[in-house]
C-alpha cells in the first residue's frame, strides 16, 4: 500500500483519488483560462459564458470547469452526440451547436477533440462558448423565432479539423453565416487553442502516471462524485414533493406556459418527473433536454452543500423524466434560443418550490428568474463597422429562513459578468445613462428579497434591438408567507421624448438617440413581514 499507482493494477485509494482530482481539475481550468483570455466575444472574454471539460475514452465526462451552471450537465450530451455521428481520428476536431444533436441553443458553439497516444484513444477534451452572434434574423441571435431555422446557423456535429487540417470550406460557410466574421474566427481560434492545451496536459498526465492508472482514476473520480451525491440525497427527507410555476409567455401570443414537477426522494436517489408540463410552444422559450438536465443537476448540486466534482458520476443517482415534445424536452424544429436562458431559470424555480416541501429551512424564495437578455446590433458609421452585442442583466436573489436576499446579483443558471461601462462605450455606439439598484423591488417578508437592477442604455446609432425576458407578469414567488418580488419591466424612449413600455420579448428597430430602460425583477421575500416594532434587530433588511 502507501498509494503507489503502478502501471499494472492501478488501485485508486483515497490518496490517489485526491491527487488525481487536483490534476484533472487543473487541466479543465487551464483550458478555460486559455479560452477566456484569448477570445473576442464579450460573452466569452468579459462574461465567462463558457465551459471546458475532459471526457474518458467512452465519452463520459470526468471533469468540468464551468463558470455558469447552465453548462453543467449539458456538456455530456455534446460528446455523446459526436460519438454517435463520427469515428474520430487523431487530430480531428468536431464542431456543433445543434440543440437537437448535443447543443443547447445556437450561440453556444461546442468543439470536441479526441486525445490519442499513437493508436490508443485516451479520452476527449471539449469546450463550449457563447458566441456574440450566430446569424439568424437579428443581431445577437436571440430574436423571437417560430422555428430553429430562423434562429441562426445550425451545425450538426461536423469535423472542422480533420487529422490536423482545418476544413477551410466549412469554416467559410460558418463565417459567412454570422454577422461579425472576424470576431467569430478569433473566438474559434481561442476555442481550438483551449482544446490543444487540454489534450497536451492530458497526454502529460498519462505519460507521468500511465494509461491504466489515468483511466482507473477517471472512473474512480466519477464514483466519488456519485457517492457524494447519494450521500447528499440520502440526507434529504424521503417523500414526494410537487410544484408548478408559469412562464409569462412565448412572445408570440401564447401566454402562461405551465411547468410542473414531481420529485420523489428515496434513500439516496431522486426521481424528477416533469409530466403535466405544457407542450412545446411556437416562440423560442422551449428547452431541449440538455438544458432541463442542467437545471436539475444544478439544483441538487446546490442542495448537496459538498464540493462535488462535476462529472457524469454526480448525475447517476438522479433520474429525470421529461415528456418528449413538452416545453422541457422540445423536439425539432422548435425555436429554443430562450430555453437556455429563461426556461432554465423557471425549471430551477419550480424544482426549488417543490423541494421547499422537503427542506423548508434551506430553500430560498424565487430569485429574479430571468436573465433579462438584451441584444442589439447595426452599423456604426462613426467607426465604420458593423456591431453586434449581447448581455444579460442580473436581478435580486430570493430570501431564505436564514437571511435576506442579495441584490443585483446573477442567480441560478447564470453567473456572467457585466461589461464595464467604460469598455462598452469605447467599443460600441452606445452610452450607459443609468446603472443602479432598483430599490424596494425585492419581496417584503421577515427576510426581504434582494433588489433588481435599473439599466438604461442610449443608442448612438440606429440599431436593431432584441429583448428576451421573463418574470414581467408572473412575479418571483415568496415563501413561508413572504411577498413576491416586483416583476421586471422594459421601456423605450424615442429621441423626441415619446416613451412607451416594451413587452418582455420583442425585437424592434430604433433610431439613434433612443433610450432603452430595463428594470429587472427582485427576489421573493421569506416569512411574514412584521411591523418594525416586532422585528428583532438581526432580521431587518440588509443595507
Amino acid at each position, binding site marked *: *500500500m*502507501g*498509494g*503507489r*499507482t503502478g502501471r499494472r493494477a492501478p488501485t485508486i*485509494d*483515497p*490518496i490517489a*483519488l*485526491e*491527487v488525481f*482530482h*487536483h*490534476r484533472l481539475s487543473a487541466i479543465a481550468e487551464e483550458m478555460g483560462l*486559455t479560452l477566456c483570455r*484569448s477570445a*473576442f466575444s464579450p460573452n466569452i*472574454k*468579459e462574461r465567462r459564458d463558457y465551459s471546458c471539460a475532459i471526457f474518458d475514452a467512452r465519452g463520459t465526462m470526468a471533469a468540468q470547469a*464551468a*463558470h*455558469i*451552471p447552465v453548462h453543467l450537465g449539458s456538456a455530456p450530451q455534446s460528446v455523446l452526440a459526436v460519438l454517435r455521428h463520427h469515428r474520430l481520428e487523431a487530430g480531428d476536431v468536431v464542431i456543433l451547436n445543434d440543440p437537437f444533436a448535443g447543443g443547447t441553443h445556437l450561440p453556444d458553439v461546442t468543439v470536441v477533440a479526441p486525445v490519442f497516444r499513437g493508436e490508443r484513444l485516451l479520452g476527449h477534451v471539449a469546450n463550449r462558448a457563447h458566441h456574440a452572434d450566430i446569424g439568424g434574423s437579428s443581431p445577437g441571435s436571440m430574436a423571437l423565432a417560430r422555428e430553429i431555422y430562423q434562429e441562426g446557423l445550425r451545425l450538426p456535429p461536423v469535423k472542422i479539423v480533420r487529422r490536423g487540417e482545418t476544413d477551410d470550406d466549412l469554416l467559410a460557410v460558418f463565417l459567412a453565416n454570422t454577422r461579425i466574421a472576424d*470576431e467569430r474566427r*478569433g473566438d474559434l*481560434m481561442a476555442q481550438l*487553442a483551449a482544446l490543444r492545451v487540454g489534450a497536451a496536459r492530458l497526454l502529460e498526465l498519462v505519460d*507521468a502516471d500511465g494509461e491504466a492508472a489515468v483511466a482507473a482514476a477517471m472512473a474512480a473520480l466519477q464514483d466519488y*462524485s456519485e*457517492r*457524494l451525491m447519494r*450521500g447528499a440525497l440520502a440526507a434529504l427527507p424521503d417523500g414526494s414533493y410537487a410544484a408548478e410555476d408559469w412562464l409569462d409567455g412565448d412572445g408570440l401570443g401564447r401566454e402562461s406556459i405551465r411547468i410542473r414537477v414531481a420529485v420523489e426522494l428515496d434513500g439516496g436517489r431522486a426521481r424528477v418527473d416533469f409530466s403535466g408540463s405544457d407542450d412545446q410552444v411556437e416562440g423560442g422559450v422551449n428547452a431541449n433536454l440538455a438544458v432541463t438536465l442542467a437545471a436539475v443537476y*444544478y439544483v441538487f448540486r*446546490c442542495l448537496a452543500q*459538498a464540493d462535488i466534482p462535476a462529472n457524469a458520476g454526480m448525475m447517476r443517482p438522479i433520474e429525470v423524466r421529461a415528456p418528449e415534445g413538452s416545453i422541457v424536452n422540445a423536439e425539432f424544429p422548435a425555436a429554443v434560443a430562450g430555453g437556455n436562458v429563461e426556461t432554465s431559470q423557471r425549471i430551477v424555480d419550480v424544482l426549488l418550490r417543490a423541494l421547499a416541501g422537503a427542506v423548508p429551512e*434551506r*430553500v*430560498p424564495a424565487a430569485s429574479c428568474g430571468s436573465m433579462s437578455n438584451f441584444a442589439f446590433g447595426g452599423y456604426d458609421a462613426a467607426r465604420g463597422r458593423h456591431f453586434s452585442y449581447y448581455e444579460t*442583466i*442580473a436581478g435580486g436573489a430570493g430570501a431564505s429562513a*436564514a*437571511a435576506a436576499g*442579495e441584490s*443585483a*446579483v*446573477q*442567480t441560478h443558471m447564470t*453567473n*456572467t*459578468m*457585466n461589461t*464595464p461601462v*467604460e469598455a462598452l*462605450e469605447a467599443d460600441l455606439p452606445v452610452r450607459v*445613462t443609468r*446603472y*443602479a*439598484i432598483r430599490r424596494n423591488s425585492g419581496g417584503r417578508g421577515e427576510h426581504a428579497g434582494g433588489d433588481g*437592477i435599473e439599466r438604461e442604455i442610449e443608442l448612438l446609432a440606429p440599431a436593431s434591438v432584441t429583448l428576451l425576458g421573463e418574470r414581467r407578469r408572473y412575479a418571483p414567488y415568496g415563501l413561508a408567507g413572504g411577498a413576491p418580488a416586483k416583476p421586471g419591466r422594459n421601456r423605450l424612449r424615442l429621441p423626441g421624448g415619446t416613451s412607451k413600455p416594451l413587452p418582455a420579448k420583442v425585437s424592434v428597430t430604433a433610431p439613434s438617440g433612443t433610450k432603452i430602460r430595463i428594470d429587472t425583477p427582485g427576489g421573493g421575500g421569506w416569512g411574514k413581514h412584521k411591523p418594525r416594532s416586532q422585528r428583532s434587530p438581526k432580521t431587518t433588511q440588509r*443595507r
Partner: protein
Amino acid sequence: MARSSAVLVGVDTGGTFTDFVGVWPDGDCRIHKRPSTPDDPARAVLAGLEELLGDADADITYGSTVATNAVLERKGAEVVVLTTAGFEDLLEIGRQTRPDIYALQPRKPQPLVGRARRIGVDERMTFDGAALSSLTAAEIDRAVRRVTASRVGSVALCLLHSYANPDHERRLADALRARGVHCSVSSELVAEYREYERLSTTVINAYVAPVMERHLVRLGEGVGNRRLRVLQSSGGATSRETASHEAVRTLLSGPAGGVVGALAAARRIGESKLITLDMGGTSTDVSLVDGAVRRHTEWTIGDLPVKVPAIDIHTVGAGGGSLATIDAGGALKVGPESAGADPGPACYGRGELPTVTDADLVLGRLVEDAFLGGDMRIDRQRAVRALSGLARRLRVSVEAAAEGVVRVVNAGMERAMRTMSVERGLDPRDYVLVCFGGAAGMHACELADALGMRKVLVPTHPGVLSAWGAMRAPVERAHVQTVRLVDPSDAELAAAAAPLRERVIAELAAECPGARCEIEVSVDLRYRGQSYEIEVALGGGLRRRFDEAHRRLYGYADPERAIEAVNLRVAGAVAAPKQREKKQPRRRPRQRPPRQLWWADGWRRARHVERMEMPAGRSLAGPLIITEVSATTVVAPGWRASVAPGGDLILSRGRQGKRNGR
C-alpha cells in the same frame, strides 16, 4: 542614498511574530524576533527596533499588515464616495456575479461604503475624454457641502472615464483638499479603464489611508531621525508619506518581502529564474521570478478587486497546520481547515486531529528535539495517535497514512506551481525552487521532482526571509495610463509615455535625491477586440514580441490582426544600498545519531546535520535531514546538499533524475 553609518534594517509583521533583520556597516548581521501585538502593531515594531538597534542610526524598510488587516477585519475609516450621477450603486453592483455559483443564498462581498455615503455628481465624460456634461462650480459646491455635512474625513473620487480626462476629478479634489479633506482620486491612483475595479481600488485606499497614516505617524515618532520606508505589494519600498496617502499600495507588503528576499538570495548563487515556495501554518504562497519579480494588477483582497501592481503570488489554502480528513465521498482532504495556532498540530501537545506537521513528524522529517532550536518539544506519540484514526479508515499503516497526507498537500502545491509556470507557457525545469518558511524544505525534493526541477535553494535565515527581503527592496514608484491606440508606432507610444515617465522620475528624485534610477516602460497589448492584455516592454520588435508572447501563452498568434495598446506602465526603481554581510561562522560538525526516515514506502537510515555544521565545499548525499532554528530541510535519496560560499543551502538532483514518491 546609502548612509555609510546606518544599519540596514528589514521588518516584517506576521500574525504571531514580528521579525527583524539588521546588517551593520561592518557586515555584522543580526536577527531578532518578538511576539506581534495585533491590537497595536507599532508596539512590537518599536520595541523590537529598540532591542535590535539600541541607539544606532538606521535605514528601516517595513513590511506592514496594517492596511491588509483594516480591510479584512473591516476596521477602516468612514468614507464618502463621489461618483458620476446615476452610478452611485456601482460599488454595490460590482461585476454582478456571485463568488460561489452553487450557493443557494448567493452573497457578494459587502461594499466598504453604504448607499447613504455614496453621492452622485452631475457631470459626464465620454470615452475619448470629452466633457459631455461639464462639472459646474455650483455642482462642486454642492458636493463639497454634502461631504462636509457628513463629517467624514476621507473621500473616494471616481468618475466615469476619468482615465481619459481627469479634469473633473481634479477640480473636485482641489476643492475638497482645500478644506482639509483626505481625497483618494481614481485618476491619480490608477488611470486605467474599467470603472468598477478602479472605483474599488480608490475606495479601499480611502478606507485604509487614514488608518495607515495614524500608524505611520506613531512609528515615525518612535524611530526619530532614522529613515523609515514601507514595502509595497509590488516589492518596492516607498516613503512614509506615500505609504500613508496611497496605502492601498501596501496591502500585500508581507508576502512581497519574501519573494524579493528569495530573488536577492538566489542572485548570490548566480540564479534569477525561480519558483518560490513559502509554506506557512495555514497557507502556502507560490510565486515565479523570471529574472525580475512578476507583477500583476488583477487581484483581490476579501473578494474586492485592487488594480495597483502586486507581485503575482498564488496562495494555496494548505500549510503545516492544515487538518487531514476523509470526506463523505471517501477522498483524503488536507485543508483548508486548519488547527491554527490553537490548538495547533497534535504533536504540539493540545490538538487531537492530524495535520501536515504531524505527518512530517511521523515520517521522520521533523526532528523532535531540534524543533525551533530545541526550544519547543514536539511529541511524536501524539502525532502517531492522531494519524492512527486516519490510517484505520484508509486501512493502511500509520506511516502510509502520513505519506498520503504529504502527497495530498504536495498535490495542491504542485498545482499552484504549475499554474505559475506551465500555464504561463514557462517550463519549470528552467527554474530553481526557492524554499522558505519553516516547512517548505521538507517537501522541496518531491515537488521539484514532480516538476522536473533539478535545483533547490534554501536561503540563509529561511524563517525571516520576508524581513530580510524588505531590507533588500529597491525604492520604487509605478504609474499607469490607459491610452487605447490601435497599431501604434514606437514614437507614438514613447510620446504617450513621456508624461508618466517624468512623473515617476520626479517622485523618485524627491524620495531619493541624487540617486540613479532605472526606468522601465511597458505597454499592455492585445489583439484588437480581445479583453485581456499581455504586458510587453517598450522597444524594438514590439509587434513580434507580442505575437510570440501570445503564442507562448495561448498557443496561437495572428500576426495579421490589428493590435491595440491599452495601458502604458512606467516603473522606476532606485536599488537598495549594497551592504556586504559577513559570512556566518561554521560550527564544528558534531556526530549525531542517524534518523529513521520513511521514504517511498519504507524506513531508511538518514544522516542528521545542523545547517551551521555543514562542511563548506563538500556535498552530502541524501537521505539527509538538515535542521536549523527556524526550518527543516529533507534531502531525498537521489539528491545532494551543499553550502554555497554565502551560506545558502543548495540541493541538486543526481544524474538519474526521475519522478519518485508516487
